[in-house]
């Protein structure tokens, strides 16, 4: 091994952006950003959603052409105008979601990732070369295993190995841990850090998790609204400083105090639920869970363990194969009638995609829950658009939705404002049961704080809240009780006060 490492040592690439600017129409996505990543560095790129991180990376990868600015690879100016040019320059990217072919083996996936495949592949020679390549690597994945059988952590390792196999010595990792358990994340980032420390590779990691920055990165750059706002050696900075750089002067709503003894007679019971996924395979099996009024039960788990199917079944987007949901002892079906009877509301992830109709106006979108009831509906079925607009105008004001007018199509609003419009619709009435799924996905800090405070508010008012989130920190912060979902089942339930990150992580990984 020592020999092998020596053979590939000191091949890391340095990269420098000078005055990178990218303008889309009237939007300045990236404004004169200069960043230097030294060879062998583990550099973190921090920023909120929409800060310009992905725009910068896409300019480096040749997906976008910067409006102005230079890119220097190992000190020499490089013109990268296509992804192929980036590959030739030794710059590779590991995307947030896997780019593997599940039905092929590890070896096949690695071979097909090459751009220069001959018409007839000499598999024997290729496999020998791959085996030799794996020998030199500090971590391995079984070459003959079908990718479908790999765990998420193994897949992520394979993605990284793939880049190394393609001889990419500058690795861009785009939020690489969002699909991993905490233990897998630590292992993989550790391996990557060690390779960087040996000078084999240079790493640029996009992230919004401070923990990963302080634990693994050695330098950091922070972007906010397209501007470079600060950075430097990680050892010189506190998490507090980084967070202030990321958020800026935006006022963040203080988290609402969690009231101690909320009195509520609401009781939700999920009783032996079975749900299939879109391929007809069981996704949720024999799931039992009770949620009391005035309580937030958070479901933690690695993405793809049945959480989204569970939420969809409760929200009427997917049939329940078996089992029943009871609210206050009475059976509940996901119909409009039962939503109204039991006052069930929902905050889905990515509201523009899941909770709104893009081309309908803000007023119409706000009316989804009430358009068929007086005063908006006369005679039971006749719409009253003026009532709709009046109600919307009130809610737009009280929930501070920034929109030119109630008649603007909702797709023209920013993510945070769409989310606020949905909050206005779902939370402005009397809420008894609230189903929340990844509520903060893709939102800026101020909006995240706002939504979390609203969820706590509803809990304090006596609502039974089911929170499903892939962000363990979010679950830990908001929940009164935490349930871990793995392989379609609840495998562990613990009161928040007694919750321990490591134990939860073990249950998330399915071995405990």
């Amino acid at each position, binding site marked *: 091994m020592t020999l092998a490492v020596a053979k590939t040592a000191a091949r890391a690439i340095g990269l420098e952006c000078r005055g990178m600017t990218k303008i889309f*129409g009237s939007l300045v996505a990236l404004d004169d950003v200069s960043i230097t990543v030294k060879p062998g560095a583990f550099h973190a790129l921090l920023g909120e959603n929409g800060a310009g991180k992905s725009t910068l990376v896409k300019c480096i990868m040749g997906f976008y052409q910067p409006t102005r600015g230079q890119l220097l690879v190992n000190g020499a100016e490089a013109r990268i105008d296509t992804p192929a040019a980036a590959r030739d320059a030794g710059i590779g990217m590991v995307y947030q979601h896997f780019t593997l072919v599940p039905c092929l083996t590890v070896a096949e996936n690695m071979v097909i990732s090459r751009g220069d495949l001959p018409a007839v592949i000499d598999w024997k020679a290729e496999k020998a070369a791959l085996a030799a390549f794996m020998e030199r690597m500090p971590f391995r994945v079984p070459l003959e295993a079908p990718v479908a059988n790999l765990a998420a952590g193994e897949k992520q390792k394979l993605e990284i190995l793939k880049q190394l196999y393609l001889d990419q010595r500058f690795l861009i990792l785009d939020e690489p841990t969002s699909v991993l358990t905490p233990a897998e994340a630590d292992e993989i980032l550790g391996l990557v850090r060690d390779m960087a420390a040996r000078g084999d590779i240079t790493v640029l990691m996009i992230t919004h998790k401070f923990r990963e920055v302080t634990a693994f990165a050695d330098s950091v750059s922070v972007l906010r609204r397209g501007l470079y706002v600060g950075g430097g050696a990680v050892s010189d900075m506190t998490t507090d400083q980084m967070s202030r750089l990321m958020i800026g002067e935006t006022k963040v709503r203080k988290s609402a105090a969690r009231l101690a003894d909320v009195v509520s007679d609401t009781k939700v019971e999920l009783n032996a639920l079975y749900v299939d996924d879109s391929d007809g395979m069981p996704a949720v099996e024999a799931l039992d869970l009770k949620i009391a009024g005035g309580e937030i039960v958070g479901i933690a788990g690695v993405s793809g363990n049945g959480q989204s199917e569970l939420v969809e079944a409760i929200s009427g*987007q997917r049939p329940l194969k078996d089992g029943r949901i009871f609210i206050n002892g009475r059976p509940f079906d996901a119909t409009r009638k039962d939503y109204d009877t039991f006052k069930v509301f929902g905050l889905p992830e990515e509201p523009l995609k899941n*909770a709104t109709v893009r081309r309908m106006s803000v007023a119409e979108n706000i*009316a989804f829950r009430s358009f068929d009831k007086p005063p908006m509906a006369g005679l039971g079925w006749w719409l009253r658009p003026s009532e709709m607009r009046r109600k919307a105008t009130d809610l737009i004001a009280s929930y501070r939705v920034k929109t030119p007018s109630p008649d603007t199509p909702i797709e023209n609003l920013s993510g945070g404002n769409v989310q606020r419009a949905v909050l206005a619709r779902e939370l402005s009435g009397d809420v008894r049961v609230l189903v929340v799924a990844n509520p903060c996905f893709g939102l800026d800090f101020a909006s995240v704080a706002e939504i979390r405070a609203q969820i706590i508010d509803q809990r304090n008012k006596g609502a039974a809240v089911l929170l499903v989130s892939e962000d363990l920190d979010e679950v830990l912060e908001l929940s009164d009780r935490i349930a871990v979902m793995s392989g379609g089942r609840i495998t562990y339930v613990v009161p928040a006060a007694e919750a321990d990150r490591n134990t939860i992580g073990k249950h998330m990984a399915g071995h405990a």
Partner: protein
Amino acid sequence: MEQAQSAPMPRLLANPRWKAVAETVAIPVIALVTAAIVFSGFLLFLGKNPLQFFALVWQGGFGSAFSLQNTLQRAAPLILTGLAFAIPAIIGLTMIGAEGALVLGGFAAAALAVPLVAAGSPPMLMLVLTAGMAMCTGAALIMIVGWLRHGRQVNETIASLLLTYIAIATMNFFVEGLLRDPASANKPSTVPIGKDYMIGPIPGTEVHWGFAAGLVLAVLLWLLMSRTTFGFAARVTGGNPRAAQAQGLPVGMLILACSAISGACAGLAGFYEVTAIHGQANASLVAGFGFTGILVSFLARHNPLAIVIVAILFGAIEASGGLIQRRMDLPDATAAVLQGLIFVILLASETLQGRIALFQPASDKRA
């Protein structure tokens, strides 16, 4: 920045509502003009004068009282089949089965008419019963598609297309066998319902009542889709089925209801073809009205009121066909070439949606 953007804009376009309307109108108009230009090139290639062509379309479609009535007559089935496509389109389904529903509806009306006429039923009663029959048959056919879509996740476009062939084959099966009028030697047909039982023209014109029915239905369906809770729920479902489900809207029932309306409109078109034009069911029912209706609906952007205008435009193109054939020595298929061009260019120009800066609301996405 906002002011700099909005200053050169016409005042009317300052309101986001009007901007959206302007965009909705502009895109089909751009498509029509582009298609006319491309088609002119085609005519020049054939050595014909494009200006003469468009002048003849005007003359043959709207030039005289006779040609105008001819146009409206031809527009009648197109309004109904256009509506048959538009209503499912609003709920997000691409159903192209209007041709089948028209044929099967018309056939069912003709088949029911035979015993009624033989029994000497009053003409009014016979017409009401056969119209109901045609609408129910068409509705049933498209509801099969709706059920397959919602209950079994079968692609509705393919299902409706295949059912159209089954519908046509079913009519042929009966017309050439069990229900064939022995007197129809060369062209197998059902027994004619007879002049006394046929629907006359709207008084003072030569346009049959199907045009009036189309007008009334267009207005009613426009009200239904834009002013009622049913229409609102349908638009939510069409815009985002997942959001509709999460709101507990009865998506399955909405789809079935829209399918039923669609089939009933097309079936009614078949009824008028039989009782106002042909007097019997035969292969003449398979005239492509159902498919032209798709084009009409797209050009009208699935707006029931706009469908009336577009259907009249297409009626004019068809009405002027004979004149163009005679004066310019162009084959009958010329009109089909023009229609096809319009459709392809229209589908392509749909991608302009949201890309014309003039129609975009002043963005505050960065804020």
